[in-house]
């Protein structure tokens, strides 16, 4: 019998300058060929664990690593990161940072050239690595012209060419759209079938369901380690580890049913045999119509300087107080459309009007006060030395008097529940930085808030917090438009879906018909939330677990 792929004994890691260890007391053995999924809240030590295995700590990030790490029976103590290439590979969330070449083939060749692989062996290795990630035929393409999913797959191919028996994936799909995500998950399944040992760090429970073993980390310690069915079927264990429990698990717990299954079909069978089939009301209360039209988009077209059409004849109207989800694959034009709403981009043809006035002609300071735009990456805008300075930047640009600026800063920070006024924005964690970015826009008191993927990259707790914030703002009368890829965020919080495909409007309407239209969902590479899919298997279209439960209790 071969040695286990990974053996950790009393592993602990403390970053230089940190007071507490990022990872401690980890004892773990992972057999060869297994798939392990590591889950936990931000800061639980998931990435640190991965970095210890690849020796990124302490080789790149200074820190103290104690305990033993054996890979394939060999201790890795004193090895450099580069020396382990070919033994262990690691894929990051940021796929752009993992590509260094101007050509797909050269990208795969890179590792081979640096690990003494003879040139005669290279063509076969390149072909196999590209085939494993489904990029055969992409040889010679410029990586900058690839989609996100293709880029991430290329980064994987670059590592696979070195034939490492162990691969680590640190949130490989977080920055991808649903289609890209599916592509990468498919690659993972193929690598597993080929016998590679895989360690995947993920927030999404769907990936974990297929694992051999799931680890929950909390404050640097492994708090639970078990088969996915056990851990993901336990609402309390999930919540304690900062993991969003699967819909089916929450539903079964609420109904008092034991052993929730991981598959939708199995769950539907169990409910059927228990006689718990939901009965939706004969008709759903109509979504309240918006009061007055606020933003009018008419025949909007946008053409990039290179001649590509990003938007083609898009028309829609957003009313006061609406909560709209703008969705579509990456490159479908949704961000381009969003950027027209506050004049960051000007239409090539057509118009965008805000209360009847052409947005493109409004002066900047007026626009900033009407339509706020929060970028996906908060780090694209944070620059000040303190949190309050950061929020004060916008109001100061408007030339407001000091007292008013102070008032707005206090108001905005209170709204996002951020109280460390003098903290350095760069030292806040990702969720707090995201909320700070929202506060810095709220201080301009815009009527409309446009947010580009406000929950991407956040853990469950932070996502909840961000969504509660948006729900509060919406309840207070703000019009909100979010660009998102996350089905349950749409189902639980928004009231209307706008779907773009290849620059055209594919769907614009309420949620329920959208999630009931399999063809539309498939075209958008979109998947309904688990609870909706379960409902569909039982003949109805619930949007949330709460709604599903209400429909069941209607029976009795």
């Amino acid at each position, binding site marked *: 019998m071969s040695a286990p792929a990974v053996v950790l004994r009393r592993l602990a890691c403390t970053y230089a300058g940190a007071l507490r260890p990022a990872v401690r007391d980890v004892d773990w053995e992972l057999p060869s060929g297994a798939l392990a999924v590591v889950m936990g809240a931000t800061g639980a030590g998931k990435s640190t664990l991965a970095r210890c295995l690849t020796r990124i700590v302490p080789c*790149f990030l200074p820190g103290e690593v104690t305990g033993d790490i054996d890979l394939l029976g060999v201790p890795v103590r004193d090895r450099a990161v580069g020396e382990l290439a070919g033994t262990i590979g690691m894929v990051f969330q940021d796929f752009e*940072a993992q590509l260094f070449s101007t050509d797909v083939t050269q990208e795969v060749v890179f590792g081979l050239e640096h690990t003494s692989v003879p040139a005669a062996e290279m063509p076969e290795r390149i072909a196999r690595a590209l085939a494993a990630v489904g990029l055969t035929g992409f040889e010679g393409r410029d990586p*900058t012209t690839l989609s996100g999913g293709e880029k991430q797959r290329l980064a994987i191919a670059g590592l696979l060419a070195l034939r490492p028996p162990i691969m680590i994936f640190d949130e490989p799909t977080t920055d991808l759209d649903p289609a890209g995500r599916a592509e990468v998950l498919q690659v993972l399944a193929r690598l597993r079938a080929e016998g590679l040992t895989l360690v995947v760090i993920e927030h999404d429970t769907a990936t974990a369901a297929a694992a051999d073993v799931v680890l929950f980390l909390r404050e640097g310690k492994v708090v639970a380690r078990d088969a996915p069915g056990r851990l993901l079927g336990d609402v309390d264990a999930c919540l304690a580890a900062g993991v969003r429990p699967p819909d089916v698990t929450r539903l079964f717990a609420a109904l008092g049913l034991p052993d929730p299954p991981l598959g939708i079909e199995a769950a539907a069978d169990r409910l059927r045999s228990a006689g718990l089939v939901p009965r939706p009301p004969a008709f759903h209360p109509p979504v309240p119509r918006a009061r007055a039209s606020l933003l009018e988009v008419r025949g909007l077209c946008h053409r990039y300087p290179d001649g590509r059409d990003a938007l083609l004849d898009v028309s829609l109207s957003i009313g006061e107080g609406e909560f709209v989800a703008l969705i579509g694959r990456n490159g479908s034009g949704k961000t381009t459309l969003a950027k027209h709403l506050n004049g960051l981009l000007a239409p090539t043809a057509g118009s965008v009007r805000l209360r009847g006035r052409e947005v493109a002609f409004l002066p900047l300071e007026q626009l900033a*006060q009407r339509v706020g735009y929060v970028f996906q990456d908060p780090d694209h*805008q944070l*620059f000040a030395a303190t949190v309050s300075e950061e929020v004060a930047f916008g109001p100061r640009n408007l030339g407001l008097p000091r007292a008013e600026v102070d008032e707005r800063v206090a108001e905005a920070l209170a709204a996002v529940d951020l109280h460390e006024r003098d903290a350095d924005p760069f030292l806040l964690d990702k969720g707090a930085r995201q909320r700070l970015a929202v506060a810095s826009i709220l201080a301009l008191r815009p009527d409309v808030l446009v947010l580009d993927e406000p929950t991407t990259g956040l853990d469950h707790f932070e996502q909840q917090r961000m969504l509660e914030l948006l729900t509060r703002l919406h309840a207070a009368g703000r019009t909100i438009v979010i660009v998102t890829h996350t089905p349950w965020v749409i189902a639980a919080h928004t009231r209307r879906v706008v779907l773009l495909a290849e620059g055209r409007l594919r769907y614009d309407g309420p949620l329920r018909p959208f999630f009931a239209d399999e063809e539309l969902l498939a075209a958008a590479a979109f998947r309904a939330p688990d609870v909706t899919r379960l409902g569909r298997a039982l003949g109805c279209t619930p949007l949330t677990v709460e709604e599903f439960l209400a429909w069941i209790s209607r029976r009795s």
Partner: protein
Amino acid sequence: MPLTLYVPAPTVLHRLHPVTKLGLLGAFVVAAFVVDRPLVLVPLGCAIAGLLALAHAGASVRRLRVMFVLVFVFTLVVWTWFFTGFFRPSYAGFLYGLSTAIRLDTFLAAGLLFLSITRVEEVAYALGRLGVPYAVGFTLTLAFRLVPAFFDAAANVVQAQRCRGLELASGNVVTRLRRYVPIIVPVLIGALRRADRMAMALELRGFNSGRPRTTYLRARAGRADAVAGALALMTMLAYLALWASGVGRLAGRP
């Protein structure tokens, strides 16, 4: 938008050995540098234009057309008016301006031709073959990856700060410079973070593995290289001869 001007086309020019391509570039630059009579420069310019067409680089030429025209017009106007004195147009100045304008455009075209038929990796390889350390060639390759990402990030940051009412184009020089702080800080921090991650990704792929390097690109020089090299050499020698004999030079150059 990709930064590279490389045109992926299977032409005879693309298949040349990287060192030959570098040689072609060198020969054309030297030839255009040593002569300054417009009439003598024109055939060289035409030859390069022909090669650009052969390389299917029409799209690249169109991409840079404004630059070609700007360089030409600006050079011609400036020399014509300032050759003999401040705002004193002269025929000699016009001639000299014309020659410089053609020469600069020729340089531009030669560079464009080189970049159209040569991958950045090939440049690194050619430099390596000529004895330049690997680190230099590799840094060059990496720059081509990083620079567009850097500009993308910068464009995003500018938009993000505009959303917060930042007006860049107003006020005096000092206030304008101050206005760039909210742009520069996020761009720099983002670039540093990315560079850090990139360094990790490089090592994970075996950079600094301690093992000797091998190379995939093993271009072999063929008959086409011999022909291209000979033609380039002859062109360069011919232009050097024109220069030495004085035929290629304008009279009255200061």
